[in-house]
Structure formats: structure tokens, C-alpha cells
């Protein structure tokens, strides 16, 4: 599955649409806030007893999230042995140098700025599919 961590329902819906348009059949699961995403990676809260919760093939992560930031989510993912090597692609609207640096320092594999135009979004999603889901080899995959 692909894990989309995104609080904007508009952006989540548009990304879901772009994935469908691009013909990607891998199921897309959306988490709408930072705290839930941290709990997912830590295996706490509602994910505490899900010992067999699936490890995502790819994580798409917004940085500006309610309750816990995208950086916190990244650190939680990297702190857990099961998800340490999961590819995490930051998908955000900030193009600030400081944010990009922080994201890589927290363990991001890639940093993408959400494009405004739908055509650009479609192109980006196709590239994600090709690179991360087809060509890229990951640990334990």
C-alpha cells in the first residue's frame, strides 16, 4: 500500500484522482493528521495491537500537519526498525531552503513541491510510480 499523510482533504482527493488517472492500482491509505501518523510508525495508540500492520511500499508526507509535524512523523518512521528503510517522499507546498534541509536531515528520501497545475501533478505521480514503485529496490520488498 501507499501511505498518504495529508491533512488537506482537497489535496488528498486530487492526489487520489491523479493516482487513478495514472493507472496506479496499489491501494492508497490516507492519514489526516501528524499524531495518527506518528502512532502508526510507533505502533502505539490505535495501532498498538496491530502487530501485523502492513509496511507501506511508499510514504507520501506533507510537512505541515495538525498536532505533530511531518518532521516528527519522519523521525518516528526512522526510529522504528520495521519502517527504517521505507521510502518517504515529502510532498509539500513549501519550497523554503530551511524546510528542505530539515526534511532531509530528518530522513526524507525525496522532496517534492506540490505543483499547482493538474498536468504537472499527473506527471509527478507518474514519475513516482515509475521510480519508487517499479524501478527502486527496497529492503525486504
Amino acid at each position: 500500500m501507499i501511505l498518504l499523510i495529508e491533512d488537506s482533504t482537497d489535496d488528498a482527493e486530487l492526489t487520489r484522482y491523479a493516482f487513478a488517472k495514472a493507472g496506479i492500482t496499489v491501494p492508497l491509505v490516507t492519514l489526516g493528521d501528524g499524531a495518527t501518523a506518528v502512532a502508526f510508525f510507533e505502533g502505539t495508540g490505535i495501532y498498538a495491537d496491530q502487530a501485523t500492520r502492513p509496511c507501506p511500499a511508499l510514504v507520501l508526507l506533507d510537512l505541515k500537519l495538525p498536532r505533530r509535524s511531518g518532521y516528527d512523523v519522519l523521525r518516528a518512521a526512522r526510529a522504528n526498525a520495521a519502517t527504517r528503510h521505507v521510502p518517504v517522499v515529502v510532498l509539500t507546498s513549501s519550497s523554503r531552503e530551511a524546510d528542505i534541509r530539515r526534511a532531509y536531515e530528518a530522513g526524507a528520501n525525496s522532496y517534492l513541491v506540490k505543483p499547482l497545475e493538474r498536468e504537472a501533478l499527473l506527471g509527478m505521480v507518474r514519475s513516482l510510480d515509475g521510480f519508487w514503485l517499479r524501478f527502486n529496490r527496497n529492503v525486504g520488498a
Partner: protein
Amino acid sequence: MSDPAFGSHVRPSKAQDILAQFAELALRSENLDEILTEACRLVGEALGTDLAKVVELQADGHTLLVRAGVGWRPGIVGEVTIEADEDTSEGHALKTRRPMISPDIGEERRFSYPSFLTDHGVKAVANVVIIGGRDRGPYGILQIDSRTPRQFTEADTAFLQGYANLLAAAVDRLRALDEVRQTAERTRLVLEARVAERTSELTRANELLEEFASSISHDLRAPLRGMEGFARILLDDFAPALGTTGLHYAQRIVAAAKRMENLITDLLSYSRVQRTAVRLRMLDPTPLAHEAAEEALAAAVDPEGVDIIVKPMPPVYAHPVVLGQALNNLLSNAVKFRNPERPSHVVVRGQRHGDRMRIWVEDDGIGIASDDFERIFVAFERLHGEEAYPGTGIGLAIVQAAALRMGGTCGVDSSVGHGARFYLELGAQPPEAAVSGANPNDEQDGDDSAH
């Protein structure tokens, strides 16, 4: 007057010689310790004794520190203090301000003496007060110590009094100098602290603005993606249901979102130009103009038949990124506001004007009425409808902000139908060089003076 039993007294010629030597040092030296020590050495030489010292009155008004001296064992100078009490000759001298002589301290009944004097075999002491300057108490006492009992003659005390006054003048001069330096240093420290405080306040304010701008751009763009994205979906997947009018409106939503996006981008660069701290340096604007010309043509809606000529320009005192942005905006306008009926020629050239340099961007486009010259530099002011000439109305405001940030100005000369000539006026040399700079009347064209 002198009593031969107590040895020789000071000879007038010797005294004058010593006074002259000391006066020379007292006027020349800026080192208080040197002056005080030399004062002791010379006075000893004049009076034929190997022991002399200067005791300095401390801030408490009664402690005297042995500040300088000659002939003393280690541990005395700079360390020993004497109390200027009623029962010491020092206290008495300070009180009366008169020379106080003890010809034989073994016989002295009025005063007690510190033990280090008897340790050094001192038998006689002369105290002469070193007065303070205007509005100041005495600096201390010049003390001439003798290892033999000694009667100081009137000539001796007169010499000592004059000598001590000369010493007082030198001490006062140095203390005044020191106070001026300390005041200057305190003022400098206060100013530095104030500047540092202001700088950190400004830096903080700037950081807050930067965060604000970044958060605005983030938060304003998020709903735009929704508008644009969903309108596109309507266009792509729901065309039959929308019908012609519905499709048209969906397209209008997409176009409006695009305009909003441009506005946010321009506003951000406007605020960045206004806030960015720029370090100016001498640079050649010619390659920046070439780059800006290429960008303007690449971004133009109708670049067909547009010819931009960049002439070599003299160097300017500017910031490359800010100047590049300003040139880009001027050239984009020159290309955009062309006359669509005929080919368009745009020229970029430099004109030296004393210690200033004008970069001219001249086009043969539609031109601007002189009534509008001021308005066009104001943010969001537009002269044309969105249909005819799309734009955010911020471009020239950015040019003006950029000019101001670089210590320059900008302006325009134009008339309707006859093209527009915009200029950026910047320093032709760094400000410090401009003070002794060229004759402001000597005007020359960049083309001629180029390199």
C-alpha cells in the same frame, strides 16, 4: 640657612637642570608610572638621596598607596599602604597642604611612621603634597626619604614645592586624558550595545516577516490547488454534463487560479526585495542584462519580431540578484507592451552621469501617458485590462523597491504611441570613492566610455 651638620643642600644650578629634565619628561610622556618613577629618581638626584616615593591618595580619602618609588626593596611599591591619620606626617601634610618635614624621625614626637621606613634605615622625611587639578582633591604626596638625619632648607622646600606642582600638572594632564579615553570607551560600548540590540530586533522582525510571508504563500496556495485541480477534473471528465457555458466557466476558474498564483509569487518577490539585506559591490550589468533579455523573450506571450540589443555598460554599484530582478521586470514590460502591429526594438544601454550611472531600457512600444508616470510604480496599479495585457501590477513596484535597496532611483520618460524609456539610476562607484569622485557635470555615454 643650611646647616652644614646635616650635609649639602640642593644647588640652584643642579636644581634647574633637574627641573628642566623633569619638565621635558612630564610634557612628553603619556605613561603615569614612568612619570612618577622618573620624578622620584630625579628628585633623589637633586637632593642627594637614593630613596624617594610617590604615595597616591585612594578613593576612600585616607589610604595612601605607594604608587611609585626608587630605592625600595621589592614588596613596597604598588603594595604598601599608609594611613593618612592625625598621627602621621602624611595626614598632617594633606591637611595643611604645606610641606611637612621630619628632619630626624628618631626625634620626632608628633608622628608615628610605618615600619618599612625604619626597615630601610630612613632617618628623615620630607612630604610635599601633589595637588589635584581643578575641582579635584590632592593626588597624593611626593616623599623624599633620607638615610641620614637631614635639615631641609627653605631653598630645598621651595624647589620641592615647585617640583611637586610640575608633577601635579603632569598627573592632572594624564588623568584628564584617561578620563576622556574612558568616556569615549564607555560611549563606544553603549553605542555598540545599542546597535547590537537594534540589529537583533531587526533580524528578529525580519525572521518573523519571512515566516509570515512563507506561511501566507503556503496557506494561500493550498485552496488554489483545490480550485485549479477540481476545475480541471470538471473540464476533463465532466465535459458533456457541463455543456459549453459550463466548460467556459470552469476554464475561467482555472485562469483565475493561475492569476492568483502569479500574484502570490510576485508579492513574495516584492516583499523579499524590500526586506533582503543586500551587500552592494561594483559589478558589470551587461551580462545581467543579457540574461534578463533572454528570460523576458522566453516568457513573452508574443516574442515574434522582438529584437533586444544590450550595449556594453560601465560597472555599477549594485547587488547582482536584485539588479537582475529589476532588469528582468523592465525587459518583460518592454516586450509585453510592444506595438503588435510592427516589429519591436528594445535597447539596453548605460549612461554615466558624474558619479551615477543610468541603465536605460528603451522600447518602441505603446508608451505611457505622462499623467500615469507615478502610478505605474505603485503596487497593484495597472493601466490595462487583464484581457489585453495580463499581469499582476507589481512588476514596476519591484523595480522601484530594488532601486531603493541599491541606493538608487528609477523613472520613466514616455508618451503614448512613442515607446517608453525606463531608467535605473545607481552609483557608478562605491560611496566612499564618490566623495572625491568625478565632476558631476562630466557626462558621457556608456557606449563611448565602455572598457
